[in-house]
């Protein structure tokens, strides 16, 4: 409510009161009579004020109106004079002039050009005279001019086109709303709502405080003081509860203070906001399933599912000579001629030795240099983040020799609960490590098995390797010793505890300002000289938001300062600044790593420890071994397939279950929501890919997923290129090429809904009833025609709406699953006009497409171009309207039949 205006306006009103009432306020617990009197006087005052304000506004309006009507009058006169009045060519003018000024209707007849007075049926045939005030009304009749018949359109309601289903918005609901239905003929009123209270309840909730109420509350409490009896009396008067009023009064007082003290809350700068706040709206508005903001299908404020496995950051194709601008670090580095080469050479050797497959080593020295920077900093960033966590555990000393142990300890920390930040950190850390894995994957031979389990071993190797590289570069020890990736199996003793950061919140700063042990300090200085002199001071000028943006950048782009500066810190920091910051923090962090680690082991464990869940890791490690045997996946697939088919056959007659992604961190167990709900886990679930409840997709090739041989097809699902191994299509005009290793040239034919490969449907007048849907081009049997889209509404809502639709005898409801009904009445597509027929040429099928149930309409037989589409609505026999009942020979009469139907018919697939 206009809070800004209320204090000032009411202040003027209340001035006379104030002086007298300050003394009253001291009086304790005034009697209810007194309170009533005060309220009453205030009320009267308000009413008078209101009266005056209304008068003023109406007067003002009146003034405006005078001008308006005058201008209208002018244009009317213009219209009258402007046209050809004089020559009498205007028929109406002539008629008007000729019509005599008598009261008799017979004279009126003369004025028109019709000689006969034939009637068109209903009217009385003779004309009569008008007698003023007589009991017999004048009957005027003469032959009317015929308006040629124009065929009316079949009735329809304006609807909104939807190319995909949409969840019902709140304002569309008819539940709890009074709906009055007037019969077309009788005018009988039918109120479609459960009870009156329901509607009223809703109104109640919406009531906020309006200005006059505020005024009364404030004035009364100012006058009489804050006491229970006064509050009660007020509550009575305003029909609210007293606690509400008390709260409101406090709010009002606060507002008053603020307005008196002036605006001391300066608008906070954008940069002072923090990342969590910004991400909050992202988390709430961005749909992780559709990858769009404000998704209409899944709605906002979805449960946040954080996958146990994270994708790798995007790495652009890098042209080393290309700089991102004047401030690009590459340019500046070159000009500074920083002597780092010696180190790099060493390191290059290391990394290439270690991984064996690393591509960087094959490139020029420059590239090597860049790469070498990238890797340490990666580990650095992850180290930075893990620092506060490890310090939380108060065991600072990372004496661990066993990877499992370390990771489990850090898990404890993670679960120790660091509030909102924890999530963020985890997210960052996970991605970092994941990214490293992915990169490794990429650099491996192209025929690498795409199964994650297969690549995991390699990535772990890589991870360690990176650490090796880091440590070696920083320590200037010969890194050859650390190249062996298997070394982590051997227990390594920790030389020094470097994790000292006490402050878990200020991650980077903490790291930067931390007092370091001698050894590490030395290194720090050394590296500082090398790469970023003055980096420490630079660090301070970074605002929290910039820091978190930087972290995000690392997640997204890796250690690519050009990309980070351009995309995330544009206008805030230059590439060079980002680079410096990156290098500094990385140095600081990396010697942590170095110290905590003996050449290779524990640094990696730090990263692992930072992962949200060590169980996932362990699990994947286990799988890694399995993954090597590639044929294993066939068994996996078929195992899942059987269980799925069982589900679908077991519950043939039951509606399908709505899928909601589970948030399992590990392979789903008994408590998994998907499992409990009876659905498969999908790619949107948090659980790792190895989850046994996951639908495994198919491995069809030649069959093109067109028959029940395909596990996806058999389970009434569309293939998903993210899940199925061999399902692919040629994109667009084929210029993107065909994935080579998938070969065979058999595209998947079970992705039509996903790819929106529908047929052109035309809307026209049906041969049987009302509107119908027609096909533009001929199609063969089992071809996908299009989707039946609509609003997703609850069954309760559908029951309500169905009552109204039954009255109109035109229903667009379609049972989708146990949770939702599709309603195409207001929103949908043209296929909603396809009529019912007991001998249809199409059929509808509920299909699971990327986690959502959708209705596809398919050809039951070969359909020629221009044919009307029919499908069997499959109403439940007892609920079907008369036209949809089986024995009826005439087939579908959707709109004409007026027999009221019992219950609520809904189409079923």
């Amino acid at each position: 409510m206009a809070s800004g205006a209320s204090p000032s306006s009411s202040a003027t009103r209340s001035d006379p009161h104030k002086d007298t009432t300050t003394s009253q306020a001291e009086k304790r617990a005034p009697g209810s009579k007194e309170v009533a009197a005060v309220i009453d006087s205030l009320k009267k005052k308000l009413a008078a004020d209101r009266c005056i304000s209304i008068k003023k506004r109406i007067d003002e309006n009146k003034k405006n109106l005078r001008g308006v009507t005058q201008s209208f009058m002018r244009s009317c006169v213009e219209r009258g004079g402007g046209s050809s009045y004089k020559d009498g060519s205007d028929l109406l003018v002539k008629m008007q002039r000729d019509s005599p000024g008598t009261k008799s209707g017979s004279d009126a007849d003369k004025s028109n050009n019709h000689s006969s007075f034939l009637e068109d049926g209903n009217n009385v045939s003779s004309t009569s005279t008008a007698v003023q005030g007589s009991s017999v009304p004048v009957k005027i009749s003469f032959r009317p001019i015929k308006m040629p018949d124009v065929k009316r359109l079949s009735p329809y309601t304006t609807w909104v086109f939807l190319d995909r289903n949409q969840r019902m918005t709140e304002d569309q609901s008819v539940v709890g709303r009074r709906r009055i239905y007037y019969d077309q003929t009788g005018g009988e009123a039918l109120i479609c709502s459960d009870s009156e209270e329901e509607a009223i309840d809703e109104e109640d909730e919406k009531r906020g405080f309006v200005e006059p109420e505020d005024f009364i509350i404030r004035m009364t409490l100012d006058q009489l003081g804050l006491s229970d009896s006064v509050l009660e009396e007020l509550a009575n008067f305003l029909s609210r509860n007293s606690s509400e009023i008390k709260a409101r009064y406090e709010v009002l007082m606060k507002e008053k203070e603020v307005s008196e003290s002036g605006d001391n809350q300066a608008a906070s700068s954008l940069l002072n906001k923090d990342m969590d706040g910004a991400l909050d709206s992202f988390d709430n508005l961005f749909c992780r399933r559709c990858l769009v903001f404000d998704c209409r299908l899944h709605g906002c404020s979805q449960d946040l599912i954080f996958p146990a496995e994270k994708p790798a950051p995007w790495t652009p194709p890098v042209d080393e000579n290309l700089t991102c601008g004047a401030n690009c670090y590459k340019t500046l580095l070159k000009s500074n001629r920083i002597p780092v080469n010696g180190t790099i050479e060493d390191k290059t050797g290391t990394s290439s030795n270690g991984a064996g497959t690393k591509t960087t080593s094959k490139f020029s020295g420059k590239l090597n240099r860049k790469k070498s920077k990238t890797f340490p900093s990666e580990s650095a960033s992850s180290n930075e983040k893990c620092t506060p966590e490890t310090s939380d555990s108060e065991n600072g000393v990372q004496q661990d020799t066993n990877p499992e142990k370390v990771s489990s300890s850090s898990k404890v920390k993670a679960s120790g609960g660091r509030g909102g930040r924890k999530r963020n950190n985890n997210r960052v850390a996970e991605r970092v490590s994941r990214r490293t894995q992915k990169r490794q994957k990429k650099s491996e031979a192209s025929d690498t098995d795409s199964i994650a389990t297969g690549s995991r071993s390699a990535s772990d190797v890589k991870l360690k390797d990176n650490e090796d590289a880091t440590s070696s570069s920083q320590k200037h020890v010969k890194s050859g010793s650390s190249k062996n990736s298997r070394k982590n199996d051997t227990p390594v003793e920790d030389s020094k505890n470097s994790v000292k950061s006490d402050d878990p919140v200020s991650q980077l700063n903490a790291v930067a300002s931390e007092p370091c042990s001698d050894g590490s300090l030395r290194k720090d200085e050394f590296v500082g000289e090398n790469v970023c002199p003055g980096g420490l001071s630079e660090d301070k000028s970074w605002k929290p938001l910039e820091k978190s943006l930087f972290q995000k950048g690392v997640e997204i782009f890796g250690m690519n300062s050009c990309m980070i500066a351009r995309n995330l810190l544009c206008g805030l920091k230059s590439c060079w600044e980002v680079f410096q910051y990156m290098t500094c923090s990385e140095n600081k962090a990396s010697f942590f790593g170095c110290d905590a680690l003996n050449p290779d082991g524990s640094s990696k464990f730090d990263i692992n420890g930072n992962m949200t869940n060590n169980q996932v890791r362990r699990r994947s490690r286990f799988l890694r071994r399995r993954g090597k045997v590639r044929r294993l996946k066939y068994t996996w697939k078929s195992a899942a397939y059987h269980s799925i088919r069982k589900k679908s056959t077991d519950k043939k007659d039951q509606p399908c279950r709505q899928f909601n992604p589970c948030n399992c961190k590990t392979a789903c167990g008994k408590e998994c929501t998907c499992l409990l709900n009876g659905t498969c886990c999908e790619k949107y679930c948090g659980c790792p890919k190895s989850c046994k409840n996951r639908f495994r997709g198919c491995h069809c090739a030649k069959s093109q997923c067109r028959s029940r041989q395909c596990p996806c097809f058999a389970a009434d699902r569309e293939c998903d290129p993210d899940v199925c191994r061999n399902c692919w299509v040629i994109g667009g005009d084929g210029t993107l090429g065909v994935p080579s290793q998938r070969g065979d040239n058999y595209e998947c034919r079970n992705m039509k809904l996903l790819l929106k490969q529908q047929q052109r449907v035309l809307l026209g007048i049906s041969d049987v009833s009302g509107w119908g849907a027609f096909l533009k081009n001929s199609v063969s049997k089992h071809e996908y025609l299009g989707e039946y889209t609509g609003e997703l509404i609850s069954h309760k809502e559908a029951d309500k709406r169905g009552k109204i639709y039954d009255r109109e005898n035109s229903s667009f409801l379609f049972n989708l699953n146990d949770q939702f009904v599709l309603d195409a009445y207001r929103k949908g597509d043209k296929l909603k006009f396809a009529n019912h027929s007991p001998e249809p040429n199409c059929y509808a099928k509920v299909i699971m497409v990327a986690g959502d149930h959708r209705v596809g309409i398919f050809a039951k037989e070969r359909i020629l171009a221009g044919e009307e589409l029919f499908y069997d609505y499959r109403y439940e026999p007892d609920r079907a309207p008369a036209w949809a009942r089986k024995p009826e020979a005439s087939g579908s009469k959707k709109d004409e039949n007026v027999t009221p139907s019992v219950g609520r018919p809904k189409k079923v697939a």
Partner: protein
Amino acid sequence: MSRITVGNESLVGSLTPSNKKSYKVTNRIQEGKKPLYAVVFNFLDSRFFNVFVTAGGNRITLYNCLEDGAISALQSYADEDKEESFYTVSWACGVKNNPFVAAGGVKGIIRVIDVNNEKIHKSLVGHGDSVNEIRTQPLKPQLVITASKDESVRLWNVETGICILIFAGAGGHRYEVLSVDFHPTEIFRFASCGMDTTIKIWSMKEFWTYVEKSYTWTDDPSKFPTKFVQFPVFTASVHTNYVDCNRWFGDFILSKSVDNEILLWEPQLKENSPGEGTSDVLQRYPVPMSDIWFIKFSYDFHLSSLAIGNQEGKIFVWDLKSCPPVLVTKLSHNQSKCVIRQTAMSVDGSTILAACEDGTIWRWDVITK
């Protein structure tokens, strides 16, 4: 139904007539047996201020109101289809200021009659169900808006027969639209109301180029790029039941629901955030015995008084200039017992016509003292 909060009370008119003016029945016409749903004076052309048109059954009839209480019929049109039942009629103008009459009814086809040539100028097809009201833009009388049972409001150019805009969809009405009215000065703005109990204010400012394009369109009207406007600038819920008539009164809106009163209220729009706003009910004009839907009121050219019939055949004349509201007079006649669907006031307010469901037209003239 709606709870009135303290300090936002509206001024309620008293039903005691002031009898500032009084009217008497001067004529009565039986047009036919079919109910008459609309009667409208011509307010567009000063030559035809005395001419009015009625709609009922499949008929559209033009009459001339003569000085001494007489009424003469000028023209009559009948739809060949007996099924047609016209619900509404409105005057319009061609580009040469030639008078048109636009009528619509149960079939949903809008008939545009060129009364100077006594023939159909256009038949506008497009509405998916019956048309409940047609109103003409007073500043550009080639434009008409139509309210339909198909939950949409359409803007037409009667000269070229083009459907320019459709106001419906996600933010549109949720049930039959019963009434529409153009804002008197802001040419882009109009209000619509209907069975979903809301009153919506729409703007077509962003689509004005299409309106201009409709004048020069020579191709097939069905090829015109008709646009959908899905969101109104404001939705008001001042009523809790069907709203069957709304009219602008300057920047205020007069609206009638089926709970026996007309409200005068001010829509307060927030300029920066479209779709939001508040409504402030200023005055209430009680109209007893009018709790059936499809009863429409009318005011005179100068907006000084308002006339509305009720289901007992009585007419209430309210003074629109006074604050608080003053009932000018209550018109009743012992033979007028039938539902008055619509009234029409002449330009100066001296004549009131009432169209009744039994097919009669009553003429009341002011008594000059």
